[in-house]
């Protein structure tokens, strides 16, 4: 480093200190931003895995004799979807149109309240998963991939 560079860096450092001292961020700025991020994360959770079809709301499923199985179909703005079926002590499903490595995906099924439990499963090469679980009460699906977590809202079973 030349003497000149050293002088420049020292002056820049002085300027930095001046701005730090005399134009500091408002004292509540960090707290405001933490709250904004927390609210945005909540919105994301509610928004991301959107329930678009629920067999409980389709009389046809009952007529076909599938009354014991609950079928839920979620989509994501990015274009892929999650098909899930809760039947007795099995939760099965498939990730569809997912443009990524199926091996890196983990599906989490959760219940809350007094019956709170959590089950995890990976996908096979076709995007299928199967979990031995008997969720009760309210259930939520979360898909983890590449450090991302995409959740559905809580669905009453």
């Amino acid at each position, binding site marked *: 480093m030349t003497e000149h560079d050293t002088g420049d860096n020292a002056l820049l450092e002085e300027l930095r200190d001046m701005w730090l001292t005399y134009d500091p961020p408002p004292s509540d700025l960090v707290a405001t*931003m933490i709250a904004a991020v927390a609210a945005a994360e909540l919105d994301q959770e509610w928004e991301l895995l959107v329930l678009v079809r629920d067999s409980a709301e389709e009389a046809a499923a009952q007529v076909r004799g599938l009354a014991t199985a609950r079928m839920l179909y979620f989509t994501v703005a990015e274009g892929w979807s999650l098909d899930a079926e809760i039947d007795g002590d099995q939760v099965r499903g498939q990730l569809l149109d997912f443009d990524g490595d199926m091996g890196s995906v983990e599906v989490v099924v959760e219940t809350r309240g007094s019956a709170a439990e959590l089950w995890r499963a990976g996908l096979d090469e076709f995007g299928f998963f199967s979990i031995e679980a008997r969720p009760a009460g309210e259930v939520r699906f979360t898909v983890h991939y590449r450090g991302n977590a995409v959740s559905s809202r809580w669905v009453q079973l």
Partner: protein
Amino acid sequence: MGTMVTMSERSRAEGQPDESPWSKASGAFIAWRSGDARAVDELVSTMTPVLWHVVRAYGLDRQAAEDVIQSTWLGLVRHHQTIADPQAVASWLITSARRGAAAHARSARRADPVEDESLHALIPDVESAEALAMLDDEAARLWGAVASVDERCRKLLRVVAFMDRPDYQSLSQDLDMPVGSIGPTRARCLAKVRTALAKGGGR
């Protein structure tokens, strides 16, 4: 030891390298993406003050600066999966904040074409004017010297002062300068500040 030591002195004493906001930010970002929900608070606490200085470099008042910073964070929540290298999260945030600030400054200029640029830089808003009254002589000289140089220089210096490794590529787009000229421009801008200081603060 019996005497107060700063964090950095303490970490040096223990043989630990100082943790820069940049490595703190990427550490928190990695933790957040792997499921630690609280880690995002640390990321926000570490980077919000840096974003403040970056955005204020564009002459935004307090409210506009807060809006741009908030949009930057909301953008991160929405698009963080597009950041392939977690080490780059600080650069990503700074670039996003700079673009938001530049866009805001452009639209504000269109809305108020007679705005006095140099006055604006000297006294960004009322609250800072109060702070200005508290400047000691040395700081007042420095503040005046910076205010007397052209807008592009002021912007470049303040952004560069708060960046770890300035991303000259994206800076060049925002400031409308060729990449190769940013280093020399930084030196020229500092020379202008030095000249203004020599003239007695430029005010």
